[in-house]
């Protein structure tokens, strides 16, 4: 998490932290495992009052950040979500809200109002099931038909797809990409809840079978959405890595405390050098993860040209070392760290799911290799 916060950011962080501690302590999370939504009615709208849903939305649309850096503010909230393993459609709704606000126009005002108020949930439909799409591959197709558009394709996993009232769907249109806002109740939409490793976060598979939509459903320029979609991916990765880092931070904190408290052969675990050295490695991974998650958020604000690079770097690093860190926390706890009653797995789950979705570390390493090659070719072309 960032080192220097404004007073307003401290306040946002503090109210979020206290609310989550009150409403979704880990004992409650364990009970929510069988809840189809993963959270109780009212949880999300109260969170919205704290600002969870409006940080990427322009003031003219009823949003607003507490600093000049909405994504940075949201990363702080996501970090607390990670530390609390908190439920709710944080990533998915915010990415859609930000996209709609940037697209602007009268049509989005009402929708954004409901999203910002936490009365409505939107789901970001970007990922497609393997093997067809692979990472970043878009096979869903939308084509103009008369004055309407017809959308077909499958999106999965869609975060909180079964709780969403609307979907922002990325599809192929001719040579380019198009994004459409699809009401969940549209004819031809089939939502199938998925099982997941996370205790409270929910995912679904959403199939669009020749869904007919009015032209007003198109968000942005049809066929020209690639840059906007890339921006959404960056935002999603910033939120995702911030949350993972929060979960890592908490898992590590629990484990340091355990090692100091727990005695074996008359000595605290923390006095064993082999364990101390592993804690040193974990601390290094953790601090580098903090640093990279923050750098990605800062780049998204200050250096759009490097934002995609840093988001992929952060995801590749946190996605690899994060799960290893969590697993080592489990190992250092021993048997109790593998029980459902212990809190540790809540963070392990959040980190493991984060590592696998929106591109594995390997996917992002390959993306970065492409980038390195492109830069090299550009330098060669210049010379």
């Amino acid at each position: 998490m960032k080192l220097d916060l404004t007073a307003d950011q401290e306040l946002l962080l503090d109210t979020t932290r206290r609310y989550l501690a009150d409403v979704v302590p880990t004992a409650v999370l364990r009970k929510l495992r069988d809840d189809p939504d993963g959270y109780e009615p009212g949880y999300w709208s109260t969170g919205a009052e704290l600002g969870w849903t409006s940080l990427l939305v322009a003031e003219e649309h009823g949003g607003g950040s507490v600093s000049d850096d909405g994504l940075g503010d949201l990363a702080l909230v996501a970090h607390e979500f990670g530390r609390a393993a908190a439920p709710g459609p944080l990533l998915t709704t915010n990415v859609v809200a930000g996209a709609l606000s940037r697209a602007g126009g009268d049509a989005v005002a009402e929708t954004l109002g409901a999203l910002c108020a936490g009365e409505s949930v939107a789901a970001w439909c970007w990922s497609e099931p393997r093997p067809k799409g692979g990472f970043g591959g878009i096979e869903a197709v939308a084509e103009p038909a008369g004055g309407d558009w017809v959308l077909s394709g499958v999106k999965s996993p869609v975060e909180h797809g079964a709780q969403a009232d609307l979907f922002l769907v990325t599809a192929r249109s001719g040579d380019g990409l198009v994004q459409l806002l699809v009401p969940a109740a549209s004819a031809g939409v089939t939502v199938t809840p998925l099982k997941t490793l996370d205790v409270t976060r929910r995912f679904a598979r959403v199939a669009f079978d020749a869904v007919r939509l009015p032209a007003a459903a198109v968000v942005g320029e049809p066929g020209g959405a690639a840059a906007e979609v890339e921006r959404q991916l960056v935002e999603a990765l910033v939120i995702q890595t911030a949350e993972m880092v929060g979960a890592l931070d908490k898992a590590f904190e629990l484990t340091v405390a355990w090692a100091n408290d727990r005695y074996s052969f008359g000595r605290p675990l923390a006095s064993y050098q082999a364990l101390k050295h592993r804690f040193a490695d974990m601390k290094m991974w953790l601090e580098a993860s903090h640093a990279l998650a923050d750098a990605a958020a800062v780049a998204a604000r200050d250096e759009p040209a490097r934002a995609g690079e840093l988001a992929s770097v952060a995801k590749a690093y946190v996605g690899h070392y994060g799960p290893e860190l969590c697993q080592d926390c489990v190992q250092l706890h021993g048997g109790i760290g593998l029980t459902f009653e212990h809190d540790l797995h809540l963070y392990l789950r959040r980190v493991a799911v984060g590592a696998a979705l929106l591109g594995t570390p390997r996917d992002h390493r390959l993306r970065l290799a492409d980038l390195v090659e492109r830069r090299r070719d550009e330098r060669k072309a210049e010379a």
Partner: protein
Amino acid sequence: MSADVKPVDIEPVEEFRLRARRWLRENMPLAGPGYRRGLTTLPDEEELAEVAEERRLQRLLWDGGFAGLCFPTEYGGQGLTQAHADAFNKELAGYRYPFRFQIPTIVPCAAVLLEFGTHEQKLAHIPAILRGDELWMQFLSEPGAGSDLAGSRTSAVRQGDDWVLNGSKIWTTGAWWSDWGLCLARTNWDVPKHRGLSVFMLPIHQPGIEISRIEMLNGSKEFCQEFLTDVVVPDSDRIGAVDDGWTVATRWLFHERSIHSSPLTLRPAVASGGHESYGEGGASLLELAEVAGRLDDPGARELVGEAHVLKAAQRELDRRVQATIAGRKGSDQLVSLSRLMQGVVSTRLTTIGYELAGADAAAWADDDEAVGARGVNYLTRQVACVGGGTTEMARNAIAERVLGMPRELALDRGVPFREVRSGSAGGAAARG
């Protein structure tokens, strides 16, 4: 143990093999494609049905004269050699067998009984085990003691011809469907910890023992914790000398670490030249890569190859360790190498599975459980490095007992146990 004794009039291995082959074909049910061994998360009634079925299978072996191949005949065994056991394991491939009896009933419990029990104790229990009547569990780990097994705080106090036990044990697999427990307890608090322990055997289902099932993060409830309150054990059920329980426990742990190579247990062999517990490294991961659409991806193929290498390395290391010990060319402590390797290889294979499955192992449809299971396995990855003694303890043993490096400072060494500091952490143990 009878594995070392080779009387001249013993049945030749090849004759035995043919006899076993015939008998298995006529008597033993086939495993079939859907057959799964090992701890799964079955509903309780199904679990109990499987336990009953395995008792029946063990009884089948007993009736057929194939129970306890390397156990002495005087306790109901067959008095055969490791070579016979190997032959039987090869023939057993493809059949069902009483999996739940192998661990921990036969090894380490029966093995400990065989080594330290009196003639009467063995007569009372070994045939009962081989007949399928008794399933045993280890009352060894304790909440609060973690890897420090000798730091047991379960107390046994002498009262006339009996002992009265109080305390708690944890991480006993399936205590709720088992019959007897092998229990390490403290009989003397005024001497250093290793010198005040004794070993007892006791029926699990009795009024003084409360069994609580622990839910693991994958939903399994096989592990139990037991609370012992004034449990009375006759002195005749003590195994080994009073206060000399650590001598018994040391061998107990050796047997536990030797599970994959003991001549006492059944382990059907598989085609690839190893025991089935090794499997064929890359095969299931290859299927997974195919499901994930990555069969043409060299990155995925390299992971499949790596898995194959690691499985083979584990198998060959185990063989070398066993041959070294059997040939008396190295200490028993070498089994710690096998234990460490098992943990390292298993966690890596689980991780490879999660990597190959990608997003589908994090969120999956009902009809895709096989891929989703890769995710759940990943969450419980460290079981392989915790259960049965942590890999940390194995590394200590290798450095100190195999390489002879200086021992870790133990602040409880030479100190009366009641003065040893135990820290504030409660909860369960660092040993699954």
